[in-house]
C-alpha cells in the first residue's frame, strides 16, 4: 500500500504466514495500514486466513503456524521482532484482542472484577490501587455495564452472552491501547445483542480514537461499523478500500460475487451463490486463488498473481481485469427477485397442522400453545432468536422431540405420534428432516453411497440397479456428481456435505421437508447457493417445506409464508413480503431493525 497519510497507527507489510513443517502458506503478501481512530473491516470466508493474519498483529500464531516474512509495525514498535518481555507489555497495552467466543475466553473461576483488575495490574496502570479501581468503574461505564460491587463479584457464567462480550471488550480497552483487534466478536450472539455490541464498539472507537481491526465473515456487519474494508480470499487481500467505494464500486470479481451472496432483507435482489468453495491452505493454485470460481478468468490468472492496482492509493484491487470489472454495471450481476403472491386459504390443502402444541424440555415448558399450518407446495419460514422454540417446534413435527408434548400435531389429517418410532413407515417417509450442521449429521464412517442407501433401503423395495439409479438421480437434483458416491463425508466441503444431507432427505421422496438452520454452518457464498438450490427444489418437486432460521434476511429468497417466534410463542404469522414490509408485532419490528444490512447504495 502506498499510503501517504501521516497518522498511521498500524502498518502491516508483506505478511506471510506458513504452516511450520510443510511451509504451505496460510497467508501471503498481506499488507494494510490503519489510521488513528479508524475501523478496518477484514472480511473473508472460512479458511481465508483472516484470523491468522489478525492474531499475527499481536505476534501470536496458533500451533503449527509461523510468520515467515513481513513486518507489523504499531506506532513505531516492530511487533514481530519484539522480545518475550516486550511482547507482554505490547499485548494488552499497545494492542489488544477481543476473541470470538467470550464465554470461552473469560476465566470461569475468577470473578469478572478480579479479571479486569488483573489486566490493569499486569500493565501497572496508573500509580495506585485507588486509581485502578477508578479505571475499573470507568471501563464498566464505557461498555454500558453496571459497575457496582455486586456485579463485579459475579462469575462469567452469571452473565449473558452479550454481557460477557462487553466484559471482554472492556478488558481489551483497559489500558487504552492504540489498536484493538476484534475477531468476530458478535458471531455467537443473537441479532439484538449483536446490534448492541456493535453500537458499543462503534462509540468507543469514535470517542477514544482507538483504531480497530474488525475481523468477520459478514459484510453486512462491517457495513454498519467499518470505515474501510479489506477483503481476503484464500490467504490474500484481494481488495481494500473505503467502505462506500467498495460497496458501490467493487472492482474484484470476488467482492462482487460476495456482495450478491449476502441475503438482502429488502428483498429487491435475488440471492446468488458462488459455485464451488474457497480453497484451503495447500489447495491453492499458483496464481489468483479465485480463478476456478471466477467468471472473468483468463489463462494467466491461474499462473500469475496480479499486483496491487487501483483507481487511487486508497482503493486497491488485485485482479488482472479490474478495469473491465469496473466498467461492467452492478445490475448485470444482481438480478431481481420474483415475488411470491398466492395465499394459502383452503383447509383441504393443509399438510401439517399444529394445534395448541405445548412442549417441555425436561419439566420446563418451552412451547406455549403454538398453532401453525403448513400447506401443500408451500414453504413456511420459522424465524426467531435462539431460545425462541423454533427448533423445538420443528423437532416436534419431525418426531425428534424427546420430552412431553401436549396438543395435536397432524399430518394429512392423522395425528402423529410423539416419537418417530411410534409413527408408521409412510409417515416417517413423508416427513424428512435436514439438520443444522452437515458436520454432525452425516456418519463420518460411511460412504456417500451407504448414506444415501439407508433411506432408500428402508422406504423402497428396489434392487441394486434401482437403488443406484435413485442415488444418481437425487445427487443430480442437488447438483452433485455421481462420482462422489464412493467418498466419505470428510472428503467433501461443508456446502457439499449439506447437499448430501439434502439429497438423503430427497431420496425418501418426502411430502414435507424440514430444514433446520441448514445454512448457519456455511459461508455466505455457499449459503446463498444452498438457498438457491432449496428454492429451486421446492418449486420443482412441489414438496412442502418448513424452513427454520434465525436470519430474517434469508427468508425472502426461499419462503412464501413466515411465522415469527419469540419465547415459545408465534408472535406474527403471514406472507413473507407483507410481514417484512409492514411488520405488526413489536418483536418483529425490533428484529428487523437489529438485522445488519448492506447500505442502501449497494442494494441497487
Amino acid at each position, binding site marked *: 500500500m502506498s499510503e501517504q497519510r501521516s497518522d498511521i497507527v498500524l502498518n502491516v507489510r508483506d505478511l506471510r504466514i506458513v*504452516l511450520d513443517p*510443510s511451509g*504451505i502458506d496460510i497467508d501471503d503478501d498481506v499488507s494494510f495500514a490503519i489510521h488513528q481512530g479508524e475501523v478496518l473491516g477484514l472480511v473473508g470466508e472460512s479458511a481465508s486466513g483472516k*484470523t491468522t493474519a489478525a492474531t499475527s498483529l499481536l505476534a501470536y500464531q496458533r*500451533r*503449527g503456524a509461523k510468520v515467515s516474512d513481513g513486518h507489523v509495525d504499531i506506532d513505531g514498535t516492530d511487533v514481530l521482532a519484539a522480545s518475550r518481555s516486550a511482547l507482554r507489555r505490547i499485548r494488552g497495552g499497545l494492542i489488544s484482542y477481543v476473541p*470470538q*467466543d467470550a464465554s*470461552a475466553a473469560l476465566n470461569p473461576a475468577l470473578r469478572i472484577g478480579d479479571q479486569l483488575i488483573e489486566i490493569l495490574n499486569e500493565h501497572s496502570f496508573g500509580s495506585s490501587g485507588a486509581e485502578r479501581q477508578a479505571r475499573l468503574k470507568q471501563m464498566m461505564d464505557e461498555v454500558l455495564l453496571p459497575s457496582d460491587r455486586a456485579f463485579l463479584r459475579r462469575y462469567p457464567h452469571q452473565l449473558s*452472552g452479550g454481557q460477557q462480550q462487553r466484559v471482554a471488550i472492556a478488558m481489551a480497552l483497559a489500558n487504552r491501547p492504540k489498536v484493538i483487534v476484534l475477531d*468476530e466478536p458478535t*458471531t*455467537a*450472539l*443473537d441479532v439484538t445483542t449483536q446490534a448492541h455490541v456493535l453500537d458499543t464498539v462503534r462509540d468507543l472507537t469514535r470517542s477514544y480514537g482507538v483504531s480497530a481491526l474488525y475481523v468477520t*465473515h459478514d459484510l453486512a456487519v462491517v457495513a454498519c461499523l467499518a470505515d474501510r474494508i479489506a477483503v481476503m480470499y484464500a490467504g490474500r487481500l484481494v481488495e481494500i478500500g473505503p467502505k462506500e467505494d467498495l460497496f458501490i464500486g467493487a472492482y474484484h470479481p470476488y467482492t462482487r460475487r460476495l456482495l450478491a451472496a449476502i441475503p438482502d432483507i429488502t428483498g429487491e435482489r435475488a440471492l446468488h451463490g458462488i459455485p464451488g468453495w474457497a480453497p*484451503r*491452505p*495447500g*489447495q491453492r493454485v499458483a496464481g489468483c486463488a479465485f480463478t476456478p470460481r471466477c467468471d472473468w478468468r483468463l489463462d494467466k490468472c491461474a499462473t500469475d498473481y496480479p499486483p496491487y492496482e487501483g483507481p487511487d492509493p486508497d482503493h486497491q484491487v488485485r485482479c488482472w481485469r479490474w478495469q473491465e470489472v469496473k466498467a461492467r454495471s452492478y445490475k448485470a450481476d444482481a438480478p431481481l427477485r420474483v415475488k411470491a403472491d398466492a395465499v394459502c386459504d383452503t383447509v383441504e390443502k393443509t399438510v401439517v397442522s399444529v394445534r395448541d402444541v405445548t412442549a417441555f*424440555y425436561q419439566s*420446563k415448558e*418451552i412451547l406455549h400453545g403454538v398453532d401453525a399450518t403448513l400447506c401443500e407446495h408451500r414453504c413456511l419460514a420459522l424465524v426467531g*432468536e*435462539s*431460545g425462541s422454540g423454533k*427448533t423445538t417446534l420443528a423437532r416436534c413435527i419431525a418426531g*425428534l422431540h424427546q420430552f412431553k408434548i401436549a396438543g395435536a400435531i397432524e399430518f394429512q389429517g392423522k395425528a402423529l405420534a410423539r416419537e*418417530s*418410532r411410534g409413527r408408521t413407515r409412510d409417515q*416417517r*417417509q413423508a416427513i*424428512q*428432516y435436514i*439438520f*443444522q*450442521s452437515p*458436520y*454432525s*449429521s452425516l*456418519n*463420518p*464412517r*460411511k*460412504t456417500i453411497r451407504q448414506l444415501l442407501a*439407508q*433411506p432408500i433401503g*428402508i*422406504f423402497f423395495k428396489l434392487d441394486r440397479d434401482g437403488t443406484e439409479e435413485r442415488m444418481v438421480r437425487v445427487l443430480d437434483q442437488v447438483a452433485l456428481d455421481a*462420482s462422489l458416491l*464412493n*467418498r466419505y463425508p*470428510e*472428503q467433501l*466441503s*461443508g456446502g457439499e456435505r449439506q447437499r448430501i444431507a439434502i439429497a438423503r432427505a430427497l431420496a*425418501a421422496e418426502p411430502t414435507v421437508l424440514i430444514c433446520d*438452520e441448514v445454512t*448457519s*454452518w456455511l459461508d455466505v457464498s455457499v449459503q446463498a447457493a444452498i438457498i438457491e438450490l432449496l428454492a429451486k427444489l421446492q418449486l420443482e418437486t412441489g414438496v412442502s417445506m418448513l424452513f427454520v432460521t434465525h436470519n430474517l434476511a434469508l427468508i425472502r429468497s426461499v419462503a412464501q409464508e413466515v411465522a415469527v417466534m419469540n419465547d415459545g410463542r408465534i408472535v406474527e404469522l403471514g406472507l413473507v413480503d407483507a410481514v417484512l414490509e409492514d411488520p405488526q408485532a413489536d418483536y418483529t419490528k425490533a428484529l428487523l431493525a437489529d438485522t445488519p444490512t448492506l447500505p442502501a447504495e449497494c442494494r441497487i
Partner: protein
Amino acid sequence: MSRGSDAGLDPLQPLGTLEPLESLEAVPLVARGRREWVQTIIGAWSLRRTKIGFSMFLALFAVAVFGRYVAPYAPTEFVGPPFSLPAPSYWLGTDFLGRDVLTRVLYGGLSVFVLGIAATLIGIVLGVSLGLVSGYARRWADESIMRMLDVVLAFPSIVLAMLFVSILGPRLWLIVLMVGISHMPRIARVTRAATVELVARDFVRAAAAVGVPRRKILLYEVLPNISSPLLVEFGLRLTYSIIMIAGLSFIGFGMQPPSADWGLMINENRIAITIQPWAVVAPVLLIGALTISTNLMADGLARAMMGIDRDTAVT
C-alpha cells in the same frame, strides 16, 4: 450466527460454528481406507514406542509359540539335580525338581498369551455390549447397568477371581471368564462415555428418524465411530490380563503342575531364589517384557488416537 439451538437442547454443538476444523485436502477421486482404527494404527506405527513394543511382542509371541520346537528337552523331563546352576547341558540351570529351566520357559509362554488374549476379548465383548446399550438407552436402563457394573468394580478383581476359582475349582475357562468379567466394568465405562457423545450427534438422530432399528444404529452407526478408543482399551486391558493370569498362576489358581507356565514357575522356584535365581528371573523377565511391550503398543495407539504427537499443522 445462532447460538446452537433452542433452550440448550444441543449442548454439544460448539459455538464457533464458522470455521470447521476438518481439513480438506485436494480431494482424491478414489476413496481411501478411511476406517478410523486403520488410521489410528497407521498413526501409532509412526511412533518409535509402538515399533519397539510391537517388535518385543512379536519376539515373545514367537518364543511362546515356536519355542517348544527348539527346546532341548521335554518340559517334564528330569535332566539333573534340583536347583543346579547353569551348565553347558542346561543353560539356565534346573528347577526344584531338576527339570530344564530353558525348556520350561520356552513351553510356558503360550498359556499366558492364549489365556490373556481370550480374557481380554471376553472383557471387550461384554463391556462393549453393555456400554453401548447403556450409553444409548440412558435413563433407567443406563442407571441399572452402570450401578450393576459398579458392584463388580467394587471388588478387587483378583479377589473376585479367587472367590469363584476356590468355589468351582481351578478351571481354565473359569479363570479366563473371571479375568474377562473383571475388565468388563472399565471397558463398559469407556464405551458408554464414547457412545453418549456420539448419540447426541445428528447422524444418530437422522437414522432414528427414518426408522432404523436400535440394534442396527448401535452396530452400524455408533460402533464404527468408537473403534479407536476400543482399540486403545484392548491394548491396555491385554496388559492387565497378562498380569492377572500370571498372578493367578503364581498363587496356584491358574495352570496346575506339572504344566509349564511362567507364573507357576516363579512360585515353584522362589524358595531357592538365592541359590538358583535363573529359575525365577527368566520367567519374571519374560512376563515383564511382555507387559512392557503391550503397554508400549497401547500407549502408542492412545497417543495416535488423541493426536499427542501428531503434527499439529494439519493441512
